[in-house]
């Protein structure tokens, strides 16, 4: 559930004092941590990074001590900035790692079943198709897939709410084209 519960007529909760920051933070965490994690994991493909950045974003919100006007958009925006910084500072580290992990090393570990191999291949094909899209479009699609509203997406990505529909339609078409192009090319 994304929206806060509105008091109904005769609802006794309407007369209760507003929740403290910690209560609101805990509720937001339960509701939004999974969405933020999944968004980051799907954008980056890196579960450790997604976990770290999602937690860090919540730590920063807690350190702020008050809720922003749109907490969901604020969290995504902070998370995007952390990822950007992380990629900038660790660019060299990532390049070295990429050079060092040879395909033969990657393949070590328990052998995969046919179904597991197929799942990996299907995921890799989607990731390749996503990578043909500009980063903003990738984020847009994944945020929408995670159930973020147009207003939240606009706020998080710094675009006009009125443009979200058009950009989404184009990004969806581009993803569809890229994926079909890849699957046809591999036939």
């Amino acid at each position, binding site marked *: 559930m994304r929206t806060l519960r509105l008091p109904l007529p005769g609802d006794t909760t309407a007369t209760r004092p507003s929740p403290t920051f910690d209560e609101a*933070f*805990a509720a937001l*965490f339960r509701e939004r*941590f*999974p969405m933020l*994690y*999944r968004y980051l*994991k*799907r954008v*980056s*493909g*890196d*579960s*450790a*990074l997604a*976990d770290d950045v*999602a*937690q860090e974003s*919540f*730590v920063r919100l*807690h350190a702020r001590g008050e809720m922003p006007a749109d907490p969901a958009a604020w969290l995504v925006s902070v998370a995007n900035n952390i990822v950007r910084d992380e990629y900038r*500072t*660790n660019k*060299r*580290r*990532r390049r*070295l*790692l*990429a050079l*060092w*992990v040879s395909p*033969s*090393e*990657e393949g*070590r570990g*328990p052998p*995969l079943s046919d*179904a*597991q191999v197929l*799942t*990996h291949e*299907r*995921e890799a094909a*989607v*990731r390749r198709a996503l990578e043909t899209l500009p980063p903003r479009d990738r984020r847009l699609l994944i945020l*929408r*897939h995670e*159930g973020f509203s*147009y207003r939240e997406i606009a706020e998080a990505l710094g675009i006009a709410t009125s443009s*979200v*529909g*058009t*950009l*989404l*339609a*184009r990004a*969806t*078409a581009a*993803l569809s084209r890229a*994926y079909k192009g890849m699957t046809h090319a591999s036939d």
Partner: protein
Amino acid sequence: MHPTEGMWQEFLDGESDPPVQRELAIHSDTCADCQRTVAALGRRQVLAAELLGRLDARVPERSVADVLSRPHARPRSSRRSLLVAAIIVLSVVTAAGAVMRTGVVHRAMNWLLGPAPQVESQYPPAPPPIPERDSSTGIAFVPAGTVEIAFEEWPHRGEIEIALREATEVSIIASAPSAYSAREGRVLVANRGVTASYRITLPQNVPLASIRVGDRVVFSKRGDALSTQARRTGPDSYLLSFSTGADSP
């Protein structure tokens, strides 16, 4: 003048303002070009949802206490020093690696810098998820022969309009976000707790189609033979209305 693709996208996502939503719904009833646009958008949306759903995103168990007890981000300068130190050690390991088995170097790299993202291929993969959108207001697909549409529960309010058209796709458009799961010609509309009206378009030439609401079959089509509890509102158009207190049409 036709509404733009962006406007139809907003319509499908339930993000248009209610008056615009109503105007678009009326327009889509009469404009074949726009019906094609909406169907194409719906098809791409279903494909995108299915593709994005393939990306593994199992969420680790985390609590507020876990997150708040973790050490705050290290200052950037100390991160940089650590990175520089790691690179120096890396160079030493690299030199050693020239005469050692690469497996040792790889383990050393992992120990120093943590596993690289590629190592995730060793995670046990999740089975491919069933395409499902909890934020979608529409779905469209080309039927493979038989179509079965099942609404989870009998709604207290709203309408289900069924239209038979010269179309190649089945489409369901809702006035509020609803969750759909589709498999082998069967679409489940998870409408529990959702107040929405639905417009279902069925191709006229679909040989077998049925629409079930809760445990009742409200519409069925076998060849040209129709059986329905819905009110006929026009040539090939039928309507089921629901309101609180009246649990049958």
